[in-house]
């Protein structure tokens, strides 16, 4: 799919927690076909300290309404500026970028595992898998009940298993400690979250011989594979996270 630079219109900007928000964008032109795991490079206006675009994974797509949504956590001045966008504002993006989560084999038992704002691409992935006839199950981890986001939307995808670090909702602890992982055998896990979480899920998967893909969040400049800043170390050497990722099979990573 050809990449393009385009101004999209903000139609909604909704706060989910004190530092996480979802921006819904509509396009004048028909949005290109997008795949779960892909990302967009967002230009941040009115933020003097922000020079580079910000890579944001696609949270959901509605081809009928011609909209896409981005789930963003405030991490610095750039994302803080994005959090102030209002309906009617334009947002310049470069997309679609990156590879995507692989398509599972027929009949596989699939788990979507994520935490914090890393759950972002899993909603799009869940919708996609359901449309392809799969029945994904979802394992989500958050710090506490106040930080649980979009629970209902994930619950529409399939059974949701939840952990919080303080036990204020779901099982107490990290997602890798959830009982579902010892009770059930999944064939494939798709994971996105903080790096320690993804590493823990990766080692669980490798131990159990489960196929596992993770979505990395490396610092990026260009997003199109020319600056070579966002590399990750793989069995093939340094590769760009923006073009050969952001989704990697954990067997390819030197974790």
């Amino acid at each position, binding site marked *: 799919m*050809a*990449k*393009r*630079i385009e101004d999209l219109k903000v139609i909604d900007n909704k706060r989910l927690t004190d530092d996480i928000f979802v921006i819904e964008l509509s396009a004048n032109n028909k949005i290109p076909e997008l795949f779960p795991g892909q990302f967009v490079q967002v*230009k941040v206006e009115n933020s003097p*300290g*922000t*020079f*580079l*675009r910000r890579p944001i994974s696609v949270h959901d797509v509605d081809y009928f309404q011609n909209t896409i949504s981005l789930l963003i956590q405030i991490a610095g001045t750039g994302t803080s500026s994005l959090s102030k966008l209002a309906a009617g504002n334009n947002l310049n993006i*470069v997309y679609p970028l990156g590879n995507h989560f692989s398509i599972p084999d027929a009949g596989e038992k699939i788990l979507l595992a994520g935490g914090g704002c890393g759950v972002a691409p899993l909603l799009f992935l869940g919708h996609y898998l359901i449309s392809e006839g799969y029945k994904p199950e979802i394992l989500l981890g958050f710090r506490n009940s106040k930080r649980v986001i979009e629970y209902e939307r994930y619950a529409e995808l399939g059974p949701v298993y939840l952990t919080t670090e303080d036990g204020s909702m779901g099982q107490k602890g990290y997602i890798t400690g959830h009982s579902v992982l010892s009770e059930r055998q999944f064939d494939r896990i798709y994971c996105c979250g903080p790096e320690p979480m993804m590493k823990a899920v990766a080692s669980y998967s490798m131990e159990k011989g489960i196929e596992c893909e993770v979505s990395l969040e*490396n*610092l*990026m*400049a*260009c*997003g*199109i*594979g*020319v*600056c*070579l*800043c*966002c*590399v*990750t*170390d793989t069995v093939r*050497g*340094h590769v760009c996270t923006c073009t050969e990722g952001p989704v990697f099979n954990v067997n390819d990573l030197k974790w």
Partner: protein
Amino acid sequence: MVNLEFSIGDLKFKNPVLTASGTFGYGAEFDDFIDISRLGGIIVKGTTLEPREGNPYPRMAETPSGMLNAVGLQNKGIDYFEESIYPHIKDYDTNVVVNVNGSYLEDYVALAERVSHLDRIPAIELNISCPNVKMGGMAFGTNEDSAREVIRAVRAVYRGKLIVKLSPNVTDIVAFARISEEEGADSVSLINTLLGLAVDAERMRPSLSTITGGLSGPAVKPVALRMVWQVARAVRIPVIGIGGIMTATDAIEFILAGAAAIQVGTASFIDPAASVKILEGIEQFMIRKGFSNLAEMKGRINDVIS
């Protein structure tokens, strides 16, 4: 009608907008965004004899009006370039220049010789100014004797147009430009990145794995402009201006300061179509100001400097 052509010796470029090495891949990465045949030239990613992995991640930090990088010349080597990239270059109606790097003088010479056999590569850019490699790179470009030695050795084996890319991390960049000219270089390009440091206060450590990196973006533009102006007054060979060019106005400033051409670098990370927009803006400016060719515009600020 505006004539945008410029030349290095007898090598013609259709316009003065080139893309800086390491910011434009091998060109094809931009096919979705622009027609790269519109550009004056493409300087491909810094190339070495052997493949290189570059430095460990993290190797980029955003800084005020710019960025620091410490990529360290990651590239797949000249064999890969010759087998996988070179065959496609004929599809582009623009000059493709190879940026030549090495750890030792012998590497530069061997690589220049390899490139001299590639008929469709009319020029090399000798990179003696990369700040992010342990050996070679900037070590050559910040010592007058080493610079002279490597330029002389490469000139002896390379018959195409030789552009020397200069480091700003020196006391007197004019001296290095003069050495380049004396040793038979056909052009100099400047500036490569400025050596810098970024600190992550929260984590109380350097932001880059290599500690230091090279600064690029609008933050370096006034330094680059000053150096281009100084060098253009001191040498007769064409000067290619590089450093924080984001817009056509930036590019025009470099030409008015004495640059024969310019390179668009970091701007392409933020707007993949920046190079073509800059080209269009230069043309519009020339029409508006009544310039019929670049030579009329080049170095014009000197008219008001006594």
